């Protein structure tokens, strides 16, 4: 939750410069809280829509959120917001109290999201110091109409069919399966008693396995003894009386028998169809009070858990404005430099100072620990960024008439908050692209024999000091011919087509002014997309790559460093200038052999190393630095690699390895232009400045 605050404050601090209005702490609190509530609301709604049912817990939660927004906005005198929230609250009050059985959920969802969007836009206005007085009347009308319809539709049903109500209640509880086993009457009730072989031990775990195996086949599972997971005593009961399972299924008894017979250590299985499932209902009631099989109530339980966690967290969390964290980070950076200045002080050269060294080591330990902690404070999980995509996928699916589900893996991966800011937009772009260009319409998918529902997978994982974010779709993949045609038409091809590898062809999409979409849609196809993605990712020192298999889908991988602030670097010297190369990209450094140097007719120098030819870049020529060392044999060559491309950098000498704090070049300097090959600068131990080389930038040129 904390990252939300951080991001939010960040956004606001930018606005603060423009408007003095949001300096008011009350106002700030209101905006911050409401925005957070809306985010929660959106998440709940989208999750509920996915499972096609609003659980009682969710309805309560939405009711609570609306109630809070109503109260706070009324206090801040935003009547349009508060009346809107009030009408939504009414709606959910009705849902909560009467639990109507026939609700048009998609309409409800649309309505609530519309309301949320309205409040959001109003909030933005308030933030920017504008008058937030757009009339919310039309939305309120819509909501009250919906509510009236709902009331009308349900009052009749409610009175005459009480039974159905109880049924619907039950369904709600089992809503995970409700789509699969919609009607109780079409399914048959079964009873199974399983006896395990004696001495097989751990009966309860085995019983749990049985449940796990059949849970996809059957519904309404009840079993006795019920608390097999956390009570080892149940072993005894199962041993003596067997493991009793009651369930409903619409498949054949033989199929179930087959599944059950696969149980390991099975001694004896009694399986029979039963007519009335009173026993089951009875057991079910018992279990409701006792322990419940986790998957049946998984959703509900998870929610509880999450809530419990957030409550727990809420108590020990404080929100800090990002500018303070930035300051702290800067200070720690200064300290790291200051420490190096003290410990590596030239005045100490040649002196033997045992106690000093001891104290210095202690200092070093503390500073590095502190650095670590500060970095970890700034690390926030990608959860919020990823979950935002749910909304985008939902909205686009509706508009484009596609059926897509978003799968999120590894959202808990943490990255520096600066990085998050930079990847949020590109990610949105990629998801949009995948949905718009990648995933085919349902009919096409069916004719290709693919599941009708497309899947977009959003995955994050860390790999060393890098984070990988992978956006994958199972759509039609990229069409090489189309890419080449388009590149040819736009004059973007710089290489013979036959020479291009698949990867190079796919990477064409990252060039500015490239779009394969024939028509421009609301969402994508303007050709400004992918190069913006690349630019954004590159600005945090990351890379983008794409891979695609026709008809299997496209995978776009973003790779960027965990943090931008501190890197391990190798300092090198050229003339009087110092440069720092990020250690991660260095492969080796060596002095060249005379026969290994090759010069082509254009004067480009290359070097053969172990049968491979690598280009040589003379830093002193590139940056026009005066140095006495111009012969390749007097200096040193550092081989670096980025994206499986190599480059040999020629420098005067190596100065040593060090952790450096990355600082941006001064704004004034950046205004002139972006200097290719420079990622920033840093302070060295002696107070001098070193320029950090951007290897990707150097290689590309």
């Amino acid at each position, binding site marked *: 939750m904390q990252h939300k605050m951080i991001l939010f404050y960040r956004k606001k601090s930018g606005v603060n410069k423009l408007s003095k209005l949001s300096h008011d702490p009350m106002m700030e609190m209101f905006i911050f809280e409401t925005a957070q509530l809306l985010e929660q609301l959106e998440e709940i709604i989208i999750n509920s829509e996915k499972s096609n049912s609003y659980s009682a817990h969710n309805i309560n939660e939405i009711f609570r959120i609306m109630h809070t927004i109503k109260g706070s906005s009324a206090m801040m005198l935003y009547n349009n917001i508060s009346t809107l929230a009030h009408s939504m609250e009414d709606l959910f009050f009705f849902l909560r109290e009467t639990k109507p059985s026939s609700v048009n959920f998609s309409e409800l969802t649309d309505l609530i999201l519309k309301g949320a969007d309205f409040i959001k836009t109003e909030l933005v206005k308030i933030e920017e110091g504008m008058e937030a007085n757009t009339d919310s009347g039309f939305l309120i009308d819509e909501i009250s109409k919906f509510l009236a319809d709902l009331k009308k539709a349900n009052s009749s049903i409610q009175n005459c069919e009480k039974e159905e109500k109880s049924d619907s209640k039950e369904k709600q509880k089992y809503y995970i399966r409700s789509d699969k086993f919609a009607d109780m009457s079409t399914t048959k009730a079964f009873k199974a008693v399983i006896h395990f072989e004696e001495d097989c031990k751990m009966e309860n775990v085995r019983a749990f396995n049985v449940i796990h195996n059949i849970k996809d086949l059957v519904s309404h599972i009840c079993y006795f003894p019920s608390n097999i997971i956390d009570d080892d005593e149940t072993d005894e009961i199962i041993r003596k009386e067997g493991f009793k399972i009651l369930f409903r299924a619409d498949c054949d008894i033989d199929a179930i028998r087959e599944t059950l017979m696969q149980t390991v250590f099975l001694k004896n299985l009694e399986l029979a169809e039963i007519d009335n499932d009173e026993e089951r209902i009875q057991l079910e009631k018992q279990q409701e009070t006792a322990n419940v099989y986790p998957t049946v109530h998984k959703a509900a339980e998870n929610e509880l858990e999450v809530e419990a966690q957030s409550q727990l967290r809420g108590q020990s969390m404080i929100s800090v404005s990002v500018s303070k964290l930035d300051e702290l980070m800067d200070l720690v950076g*200064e300290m790291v*430099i200051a420490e190096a200045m003290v410990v590596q002080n030239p005045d100490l050269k040649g002196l033997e100072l045992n106690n000093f060294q001891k104290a210095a080591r202690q200092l070093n330990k503390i500073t590095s620990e502190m650095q670590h902690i500060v970095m970890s404070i700034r690390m926030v999980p990608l959860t919020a960024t990823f979950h935002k995509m749910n909304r985008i996928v939902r909205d686009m699916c509706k508009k484009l008439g596609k059926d897509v589900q978003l799968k999120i893996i590894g959202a808990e991966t943490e990255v520096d908050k600066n990085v998050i800011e930079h990847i949020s937009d590109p990610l949105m772009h990629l998801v949009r692209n995948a949905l718009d260009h990648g995933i085919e319409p349902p009919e096409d998918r069916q004719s290709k024999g693919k599941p009708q529902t497309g899947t977009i997978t959003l995955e994050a994982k860390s790999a060393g000091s890098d984070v990988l974010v992978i956006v994958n779709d199972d759509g039609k993949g990229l069409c090489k011919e189309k890419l080449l045609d388009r590149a040819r038409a736009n004059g973007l091809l710089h290489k013979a087509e036959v020479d291009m590898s698949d990867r190079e062809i796919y990477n064409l999409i990252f060039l500015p002014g490239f779009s394969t979409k024939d028509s421009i849609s609301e969402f994508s196809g303007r050709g400004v997309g992918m190069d913006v993605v690349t630019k954004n990712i590159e600005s945090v020192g990351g890379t983008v790559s794409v891979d695609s298999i026709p008809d299997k889908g496209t995978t776009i991988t973003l790779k960027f460093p965990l943090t931008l602030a501190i890197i391990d670097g190798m300092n090198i010297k050229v003339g*009087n*200038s*110092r440069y720092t190369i990020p250690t991660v990209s260095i492969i080796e450094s060596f002095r060249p052999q005379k026969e290994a140097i090759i010069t082509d007719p254009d004067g480009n120098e290359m070097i053969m190393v172990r049968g491979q030819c690598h280009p040589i870049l003379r830093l002193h020529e*590139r*940056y*026009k*630095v005066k140095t006495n060392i111009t012969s390749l044999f007097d200096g040193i060559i550092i081989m670096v690699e980025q994206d499986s491309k190599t480059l040999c950098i020629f420098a005067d000498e190596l100065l040593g390895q060090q952790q450096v704090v990355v*600082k941006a*070049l*001064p*704004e*004034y*300097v950046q*205004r*002139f*232009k972006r*200097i*290719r090959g*420079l990622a920033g*600068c840093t*302070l060295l131990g002696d*107070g*001098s*400045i*070193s*320029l950090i080389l951007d290897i990707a930038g150097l290689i590309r040129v």
Partner: protein
Amino acid sequence: MADVTENVMEMEEDTQKGRFLTFSLGKENYGIEIKYVTEIIGIQAITEIPELPEYVKGIINLRGKIIPVMDVRLRFKKEPRAYNDRTCVIVIDIQDVSIGLIVDSVAEVLTIPDEGIVEPPKINRGFNNRYIKNIGKVGNDVMLLLDCEKLLTEDELEVISESV
């Protein structure tokens, strides 16, 4: 409370108004409004940055803050001169941008009353004229009062188009 701070602010404004830091480049004396000036330091080790216009000498480390330095001589297209112990860096702060100006030497802080300040002659279309906001008269001396904002912003278009 707010009134008090406002008053203080006003007073500060007042004490700074009409005061100029003067420095020399060769024979000419220049003045710079004191409100822009953060500090004056001696010449420091400068780290050169490639691909920048000649007058931006590079960056220096000012107590952990990295700021660019500009050689005002080169900026005004005068002959470069070797730096010596009289050479100073005037650190100015304009719209949250810090920059160091390398000048031959710093003279003093002067108060020039409004009546001592006149507009520069319009006829002279010399290249460095556009950085001169006004001309100040102090006794028999003439001070060229710099327009700091123009010093930073002007010419950029030129530079960018050159580099493209």
